């Protein structure tokens, strides 16, 4: 139904190569998240798959059929845009019906599908409103409704939640995940928020400057980041990356220790320093610790309430089996 393969796909804007040749396979029914810093080419890659941009080289296949030269309308994909891109002059019902109308579907079938989608997305009461009269979350649902009625081979999302406030974002995140479970359709989801990536994805694709840095399940990426970039990008708060003396002690260029893998001990420990900022969240406590001889403060995550505050001395001991080691090229040493 929705297996998408990219073979040596590349994209240049004039002289600038935004995406160097890239290979990727997205299996049917998978929830794949493209994640990476701003400007790394996530949207561009998604738009190449959608057909909104031409590839500069390579092949795109959807279900084994070549799709490289197909216009967007013929690829059988649906897209949800960051700005929702609802048609402001049409009612919610007409918005959702638009792709069906374009496909020339008969009225009865249209009505059936719209009712079903509205039901699923809690939009039944709003069908006759204009997009301008809806809240951000409702608009988002209309955009999703417009995508699902077509029963596409795959859904493409480009940062669909970035215009919503934090609370709504968490709710919508779950709704989209649930939708994926019920529909079991391939979804490709672009975000620069690694929390979204970790919570929603079956498979994460980490991009940097158009290159794929690593592909894997969220936990693969968490446990075994392939290089320093992925190590720093995945995980919140960020992994502590240390060079120099401490790294040499482990026989490598860089070591990485996640904040949750540093234990606060009463005395001794590998690192001793002073607490700069202490963030008490109740469930967790984060310390930013200044350690003599280190440029960056180290981040530590202690669970529960810990009674230390700004200026207190602190001793830290990393969990020995959770230390990540990287070589001169930044690649993981296993």
């Amino acid at each position: 139904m929705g297996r998408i393969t990219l073979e040596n796909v590349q994209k240049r804007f004039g002289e600038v190569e935004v995406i160097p040749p890239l290979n990727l396979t997205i299996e049917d029914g998978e929830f794949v998240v493209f994640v990476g810093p701003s400007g790394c080419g996530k949207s561009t890659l998604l738009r190449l798959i959608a057909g909104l941009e031409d590839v500069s080289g390579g092949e795109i296949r959807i279900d084994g059929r070549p799709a490289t030269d197909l216009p967007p309308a013929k690829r059988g994909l649906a897209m949800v845009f960051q700005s929702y891109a609802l048609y402001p002059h049409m009612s919610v019902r007409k918005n959702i019906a638009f792709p069906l109308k374009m496909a020339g579907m008969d009225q009865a079938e249209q009505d059936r599908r719209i009712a079903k989608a509205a039901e699923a997305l809690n939009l039944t009461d709003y069908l006759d409103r204009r997009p301008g009269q809806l809240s951000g979350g409702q608009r988002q649902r209309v955009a999703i409704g417009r995508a699902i009625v077509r029963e596409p081979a795959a859904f493409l999302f480009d940062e669909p939640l970035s215009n919503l406030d934090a609370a709504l974002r968490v709710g919508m995140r779950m709704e989209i995940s649930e939708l994926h479970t019920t529909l079991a359709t391939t979804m490709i989801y672009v975000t620069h928020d690694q929390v979204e990536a970790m919570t929603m994805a079956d498979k994460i694709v980490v991009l940097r400057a158009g290159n794929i840095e690593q592909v894997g399940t969220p936990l693969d990426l968490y446990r075994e980041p392939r290089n320093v970039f992925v190590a720093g990008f995945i995980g919140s708060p960020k992994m502590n990356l240390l060079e120099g003396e401490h790294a040499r002690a482990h026989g490598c260029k860089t070591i990485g220790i996640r904040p949750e893998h540093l234990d606060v001990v009463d005395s001794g420990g590998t690192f001793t320093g002073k607490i700069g900022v202490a963030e008490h969240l109740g469930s967790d406590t984060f310390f930013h610790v200044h350690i003599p001889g280190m440029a960056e403060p180290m981040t530590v995550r202690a669970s529960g309430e810990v009674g230390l505050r700004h200026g207190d001395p602190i001793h830290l001991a990393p969990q020995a089996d959770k230390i990540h080691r990287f070589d001169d090229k930044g690649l993981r040493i296993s």
Partner: protein
Amino acid sequence: MARAITTRKKVMWTALSWGIGLLIFFPILWTFLTSFKTEATAIADPPVWFAFDWTLENYRAVQERSNYPLALTNSIIIAVGSTILGIAIAVPAAWAMAFVPGRRTKDVLLWMLSTKMLPAVGVLYPLVLLAKWLGVMDSRILLIVVLMLINLPIIVWMLYTYFREIPGEILEAARMDGASLRNEIIYVLTPMAIPGIASTILLNIILAWNEAFWTILLTTVDAAPLTKFIASFSAPEGLFYAKLSAASMMAIAPILVMGWFSQKQLVRGLTFGAVK
């Protein structure tokens, strides 16, 4: 940030503005008043302001003049026709320039605007010659085409600026939803651009209605619009002021009303975006 303005100051400014405003408007007001006078009151010495027997006689007289209805019809057909033709050609062009900009889009747009700056006398004779050769001299179709051409750059320009305000993502959404290019323009772009298209139409009807070079020189009787009809009153006698005023009011009233509605578009359309 406005501070409290003393009422006295405000009244002073108001009086001054109204005074100047009425002074500027006076010729139109005077024409309006005169159009309801008899020819004798129209040239009375001293001038009569409001205290006269208002009569609709002049309007009736002008309408009965054989060529007034024809001139009015011609004006309407030419102004509306040239605008519709211009819109039909300009919508696709403006769509392309706004949503598929290329390296040369800007140059093409500027070149189009520059044709608007071509002085009409530079092409006067060839046009007369071509019109005669094609046998379309003094025909409505000739004026429709010529006025369409001189206003086309403004139409394209205005539509372009309106289209650019429509987010491209919405058109991409339509494309993803399976709309063909034609459907994209018919169902999504055009409805969203209706306000912009409407004001473009309005401004261009005004410009075409008031055009007074080609309409005077390319017509004699059959296709003569109101501009030419009014020009035929230019004999130096003072005995027909009231009728002249009535004819003038009938020629400018509809456009005056339309013009008042299109002030904002005027700035956008005639400055090519150089003033915002």
